């Protein structure tokens, strides 16, 4: 290839080939770097949410599509049940179901679990390709390769798409990028076919993730900005109106979305822009037939009036209740104090906190400083597409600043901007003023060498394709190149020693060093921070060997084996999906927090004293209660630490039953030692967590390793339930609710009777338990 590089046609071919090879290597790299958790531990589903997706996928594969769409799940939200078909985004399940069917059609019999585990890595490979396409549309091909390489290993995206993280985000970032790609393409060409593709992928995105709101607001924003800038063109009309109509009717097909695009405030921006665009187009049409200049001033005033009328009618409709207001989850993005005050359940999730500076650097490394530079370049060469990139960058960085979780939507645009920046830099610093053919030859050979040296160097190798780009292969731009070299030489005459070869060399070296650091950083972060399954906890012994704490599965498996099929398990909602997925038993609440009152009821059970809790537990037919307790091994995410949130959520619904200040001791502290507040000491949660905890330690010196304090020294009486199982490290404790007393006493008095009269026997029976 490189030998015959003199011929431009074959050169172009080899460049294409090179591009494909690099992209393929990037995609493979994206796949491989996500497999650390599978290699180290095992191929399992990781977090809480994916367990539900996994269960739903199993249902889809076993029962068929129609049953899946009309599935009424009786295993979750025990007294109520959940209409699953109408309350989830089915995109990810259907995707993996289709992959399953296709693979089985070719007799490649793979278990559905493996498809679920490896879906994230596969789609992140596709994401890097989509990012390449998007960046190529906006900037050059070399920028596309850079962006693809960045996004393949950016930790901000890896954190949501490691193998085993079978969550909606795994496929939806790909869909986001590909939708934007088609949108940019359709604005560029003005073809309604590309706009229809945008709408179809938008439909797919709606079926996959609730983040589709971002798309349906960003694209109208783009259109609106272009209108304001006076960049209206008929391409814009074609692209947006086709996209809006097809996308809206498409998004209404998803049962969970339903009529929302017609009735909620989130979608009204798109509708308003659509109406505005129609008016603008009509006025444009009239003007082309009239051709009068005084029309212009009139037009502008007219448009402004229309705009205000539109906003006013939107506000009145919202007041009248025809249009639903913002949902709380979305509203909390704009009024950042809103969630904490009114909906503690949103604020209680750690992902919904504002992002700190270090986490930006942790997740994006050098992309953070070069991101604004890329945006600057986009501003400098202002086209319709770069306006889109700029808007995307600004909105996404705002949202990522408000919520940790939205770092995910920021990462792709940061990579795109980084790619643009890098390609500009290398365009300027890799252009060596030599005779063309030799330059091309040299660069080409280097590229191939680098690309061939394996996946390790793939992230850096895109650094080089910038070079043939500037060397300008097609015959058409030959002249341009000459002009440019002329210009450069004149420039050199003006300022002789500014950009000499050695300066260029130094810049290139430092850039590649930075890339190298970026790769190292990404690999390090991926392996250390984001590749641990949360269902097994890994710790290291002193000699460096690994110790795995597998208490969750141990306890879940115990429940699966040793409890009746129809038993109901009460736990805090965090564990609902895992319980349903792994124990196959009925739960009261789970991670889909659609019914706040029910969650508050569970919180009230856990926060009240034995007597009241027992009434509630009996009313809900609870058989088992389960708490996580990390005091014995120092696992900080246990239920005692989450307890304050439970109390806050409960207090929002039952303000007269549960009060937060009662759970602080006399000095206003949240303590579990001897100064513990009596309400906390009496609560079920406290008793369940610390029941017989002291027996582990000699002479009453129980020490809680999470809170770092000794615990309450008097023995804890638990009369309404029996401890039936505690896992090896006391991480999961399962209690069975006692039946009511045979002769009608309250369980407390029965327990008192037993312990008072026959203390010895009682103790013996406990020991044998």
């Amino acid at each position, binding site marked *: 290839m490189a030998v015959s590089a003199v011929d431009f046609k074959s050169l172009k071919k080899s460049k294409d080939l090179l591009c494909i090879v690099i992209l393929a290597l990037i995609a493979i790299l994206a796949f491989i770097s996500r497999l650390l958790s599978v290699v180290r531990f095992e191929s399992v589903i990781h977090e809480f949410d994916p367990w539900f997706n996994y269960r739903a996928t199993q249902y889809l594969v076993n029962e068929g599509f129609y049953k899946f769409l009309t599935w009424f799940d009786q295993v979750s939200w025990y007294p109520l049940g959940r209409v699953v078909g109408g309350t989830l985004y089915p995109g990810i399940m259907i995707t993996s179901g289709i992959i399953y069917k296709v693979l089985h059609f070719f007799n490649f019999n793979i278990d559905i679990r493996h498809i679920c585990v490896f879906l994230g890595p596969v789609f992140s490979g596709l994401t890097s390709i989509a990012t390449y396409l998007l960046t190529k549309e906006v900037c050059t091909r070399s920028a596309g390769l850079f962006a693809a390489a960045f996004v393949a290993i950016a930790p901000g995206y890896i954190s949501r798409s490691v193998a085993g993280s079978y969550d909606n985000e795994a496929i939806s970032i790909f869909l986001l990028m590909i939708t934007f790609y088609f949108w940019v393409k359709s604005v560029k060409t003005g073809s309604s076919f590309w706009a229809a593709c945008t709408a179809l992928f938008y439909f797919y995105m709606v079926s996959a993730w609730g983040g589709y709101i971002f798309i349906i607001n960003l694209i109208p924003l783009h259109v609106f900005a272009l209108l304001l800038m006076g960049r209206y063109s008929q391409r814009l009309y074609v692209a947006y109106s086709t996209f809006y109509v*097809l996308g809206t009717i498409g998004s209404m097909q998803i049962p969970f979305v339903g009529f929302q695009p017609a009735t909620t405030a989130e979608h009204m921006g798109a509708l308003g822009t659509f109406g505005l665009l129609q008016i603008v187009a009509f006025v444009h049409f009239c003007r082309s037939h009239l051709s009068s200049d005084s029309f212009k001033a009139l037009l502008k005033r007219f448009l402004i009036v229309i705009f205000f009328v539109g906003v006013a009618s939107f506000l009145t409709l919202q007041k009248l209740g025809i249009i639903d207001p913002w949902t709380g989850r979305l509203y909390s993005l704009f009024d950042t104090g809103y969630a904490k005050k009114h909906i503690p359940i949103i604020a209680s999730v750690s992902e919904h906190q504002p992002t700190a500076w270090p986490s930006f650097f942790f997740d994006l490394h050098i992309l953070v400083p070069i991101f604004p530079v890329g945006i600057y370049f986009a501003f400098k060469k202002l086209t319709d597409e770069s306006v889109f990139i700029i808007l995307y960058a600004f909105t996404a960085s705002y949202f990522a600043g408000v919520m940790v979780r939205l770092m995910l939507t920021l990462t792709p645009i940061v990579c795109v901007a980084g790619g643009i920046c890098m390609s500009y830099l290398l365009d300027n610093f890799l252009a060596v003023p030599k005779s063309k053919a030799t330059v091309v030859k040299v660069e080409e050979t280097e590229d191939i060498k680098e690309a061939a040296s394996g996946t390790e160097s793939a992230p850096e190798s895109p650094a080089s394709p910038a070079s043939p780009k500037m060397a300008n292969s097609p015959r058409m731009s030959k002249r341009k190149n000459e002009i440019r070299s002329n210009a450069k030489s004149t420039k050199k005459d003006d300022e002789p020693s500014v950009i000499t070869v050695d300066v260029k060399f130094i810049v290139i070296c430092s850039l590649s060093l930075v890339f190298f650091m970026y790769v190292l950083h990404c690999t390090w972060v991926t392996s250390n921070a984001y590749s641990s399954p949360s269902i097994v906890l890994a710790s290291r012994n002193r000699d460096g060997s690994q110790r795995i704490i597998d208490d969750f599965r141990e306890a879940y498996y115990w429940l699966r084996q040793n409890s009746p099929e129809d038993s109901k398990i009460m736990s805090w909602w965090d564990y609902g999906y895992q319980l349903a997925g792994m124990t196959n038993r009925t739960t009261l609440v789970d991670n889909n927090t659609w019914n706040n009152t029910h969650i508050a009821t569970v919180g009230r059970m856990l926060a009240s004293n034995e007597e009241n809790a027992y009434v509630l537990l009996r009313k809900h037919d609870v058989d088992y209660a389960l708490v996580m307790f990390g005091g014995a091994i120092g696992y900080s995410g246990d239920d005692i630490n989450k307890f304050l949130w439970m109390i806050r959520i409960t207090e929002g619904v039952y303000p007269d039953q549960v009060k937060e200040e009662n759970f602080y001791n006399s000095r206003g502290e949240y303590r579990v030692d001897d100064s513990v507040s009596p309400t906390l000491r009496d609560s079920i949660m406290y008793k369940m967590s610390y029941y017989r905890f002291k027996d582990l330690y000699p002479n009453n010196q129980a020490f809680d390793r999470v809170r770092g304090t000794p615990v309450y020294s008097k023995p804890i009486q638990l009369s309404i339930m029996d401890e039936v199982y505690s896992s090896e490290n006391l991480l999961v404790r399962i209690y069975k609710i006692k039946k009511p007393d045979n002769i009608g006493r309250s369980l407390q008095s029965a327990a008192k009777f037993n312990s008072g009269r026959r203390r010895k026997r009682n103790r013996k029976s406990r020991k044998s338990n």
Partner: protein
Amino acid sequence: IYIIFIENTPGRYKILDAYMSFVVMMGVIQFVYCFIIGKEPWATFLAGFISCVGSFVLVANLRIQSNPNNMKEFPKITPERSYADFFICSIILYLFVISFIG
């Protein structure tokens, strides 16, 4: 305006314009009907109304793209291509509408 319009427009576009005004009328009639009677089968109304809006928009696209005056803005799209695009988009639109009409 009207006279200039009648004089300047070729026959092909007059057909398209007639179709567009017909679709607008249909949409208005549906809307008025919904306003008078009430929006009981809400999905059906939406499907009908959106199909009106959609076909209006798609024909408008076709008209814009195939207009020789707009050749500068759409360098790559020939009238045949725009017709094929119109065809594809309409198929997608009506598939969605039929599945939504329920």
